């Protein structure tokens, strides 16, 4: 029975990783740019929510609704003013710039909020749980997982059912041809990054409610998010969700054998999948 529990907890954990990865996957899929500051931007969003919750005495969910458009603006401006200057044939400049951005955000947050470990309070929800047969499931992990599915579904709909999604896909396939059709890749990129930041804000809410955060905690989760994107296949949103679940389950199963194996087995699962399917489980463009 413990094994069933282990796998269920792993799937729920995968939801958290998928949520971290969804914004990254979106940006990566459209621009082929790895945003190394993604983790720090999530932490920044968590502080934004925290400020709204404490200063205006709002419930975390309302704070999220306020923070999301703000973070969209942050992402849009970031792309227009900074990142668009780095996007091009060379993959190195965006990496360097986002790496620098990561350092800047961490220290700015440290300056503004000091090193205290903070948390977005969720009251009794934090420790609530329900039973499914012999297995106890925490309400918070279950909500996280459900949100990951909803976010993936929403992004999928935007991608394949809207004009914006068509523009995303066109720019992703061939920015030059897309611009011949009247699309400005720079603007599309900015909207994509803004959307990525909205997803990051949702991830931030769960990060902040689940455990403490401090200004330096961002990069630690970036590696799982990145692995989830690669496992799922670049540009595949459902793939990213599956990728997150693969890592989550690998981690809890590894931990059940020995806690020392927890993180390692996540990485091993990633390597095995890379060996077997170098383009990920569901690469964009089929195969």
């Amino acid at each position, binding site marked *: 029975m*413990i094994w069933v*529990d*282990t796998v269920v*907890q*792993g799937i729920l*954990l995968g939801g*958290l*990783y998928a949520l971290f990865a969804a914004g990254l996957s979106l940006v990566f899929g459209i621009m082929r740019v790895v945003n190394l500051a993604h983790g720090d931007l999530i932490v920044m969003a968590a502080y934004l929510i925290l400020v709204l919750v404490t200063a205006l005495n709002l419930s975390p969910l309302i704070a999220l609704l306020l923070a999301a458009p703000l973070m969209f603006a942050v992402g849009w401006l970031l792309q227009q003013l900074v990142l668009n200057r780095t996007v091009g044939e060379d993959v190195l400049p965006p990496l360097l710039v986002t790496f620098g951005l990561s350092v800047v955000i961490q*220290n700015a947050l*440290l300056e503004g909020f*000091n*090193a*205290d*470990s*903070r*948390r977005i*309070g969720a*009251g009794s929800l*934090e*420790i*609530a*749980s329900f039973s499914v047969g012999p297995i*106890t*499931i*925490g*309400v*918070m*992990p279950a909500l996280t997982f459900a949100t990951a599915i909803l976010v993936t579904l929403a992004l999928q709909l935007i991608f394949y059912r809207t004009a914006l999604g068509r523009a995303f896909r066109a720019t992703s396939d061939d920015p030059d041809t897309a611009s011949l059709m009247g699309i400005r890749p720079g603007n599309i990129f900015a909207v994509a990054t803004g959307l990525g930041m909205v997803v990051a804000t949702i991830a931030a809410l769960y990060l902040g409610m*689940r*455990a*403490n*955060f*401090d200004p*330096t*905690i961002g990069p*630690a*989760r970036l590696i799982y998010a990145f692995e989830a994107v690669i496992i799922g296949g670049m540009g595949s949103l459902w793939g990213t969700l599956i990728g997150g679940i693969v890592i*989550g389950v690998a*981690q*809890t199963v590894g*931990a*059940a054998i*020995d*806690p*020392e194996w*927890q*993180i390692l087995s996540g990485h091993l699962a990633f390597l095995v999948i890379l060996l077997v399917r170098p383009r990920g489980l569901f690469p964009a463009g089929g195969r």
Partner: protein
Amino acid sequence: MINRRKLLKTGAAAGFAVSAGGLAMPALAQGTRVKIGYVSPQSGPLAGFAESDAFALEMFKRVAAEKGMDVEVLVKDSQSNPNRAADVAQELIIDDGVHLMLVASTPETTNPVTTVCENEFIPCISTMAPWQPWFIGQQGNPGDPASWRPFDYAFHYFWGLEDVIAVFTNMWDQLDTNKKVAGLFPNDADGNAWGDPQNGVAPGFAADGYETVDPGRYQNLTDDFSAQINAFKQADCEIVTGVVIPPDFTTFRNQALQQGFSPKAITVAKAILFPQSVETLGESGHNLSSEVWWSKNHPFTSSLTGQGCEALAADFTKATGRPWTQPIGYIHSLFEMAADVIQRAEDPTDPDLMAETIAATDLQTIVGRIVFNGEGLPPFAATNVCKTPLVGGQWRRQDDGSFELLVVDNKTAPDIPTQGSMEPLS
């Protein structure tokens, strides 16, 4: 062997050294400014330890001016990074020419700085790291006790793992439990030291009749503790201990509550050191217990300002608007030590005389008596280490949601008053 003193005597500075030594008056009275280097983690994950740096420095400047001491403190930020700590210590010694180094806050800061000082023949006073990781962690071969050597210039005062074991078991003895202890030890310097089956806490707990269930090392910033919780539930553990970072502790505590694992006592180091971290736990922070090295209720007074612990804590809160934390007392005591040795030293700019002066310290500070007499220590550490008192405390949630740390066990240091007794979690 060439040491700093011989170099000084034979080198260009010889004239200065001789003239300073030939007079009865201390060197500082002759207008030689004494430079003190201070390395602490002002930014990065350990920044909480350095919170009272500015407060302590201001106090030291004020008191030094009153006492007519000509001193200058040069402060460097380790950025919570051991490599950076070693670099800035080098800079302080080579570029700024400091005569005395002060360092505090976790082995990640104290060890690299102490090692640099020892290699450069600069006297160094260190604190706020258990003495085993400080002393043994700096040895060439930590696994071979026969090879361990004492330091010539480095001195350290704090408590050790044996004190934590005594304090924890004393606290648990106050409760009625099945004596089964769940261990949460991460794969880092602290976790490996605490969790070591031979030299960690488990043998000490066993000596007091407590059985430790240790599922194994986990990585810091783990997002899931279901494996550990299942193991603890199966072993029927009623006590949880460990040395856990705050985010992991919150993850564990919430997941344990979700999964219906509710021990009678949770006694952990690190995670609940700062009131801010405990507050993030809300109601589930009530009655968590931990080791206490300094509190506003400790019965000591400062040799610099004459303040008691309560007055110092109140001063800090007034100056910064923040609640008192345990490091405040120790940072303060570091500058007490600096002032004391500089005033007593025949020539504070002479490293060997300074090392002798530090070794001869006998000072009542805000953290207790500091004297390097080897009391309570194995012979190998006796010359370099002084143990300061450790007691056990419990966080009590107040009506307004803030937390207060009460000392609940003082068997290890009876002169420190208790403010209550150990209460079970559930």
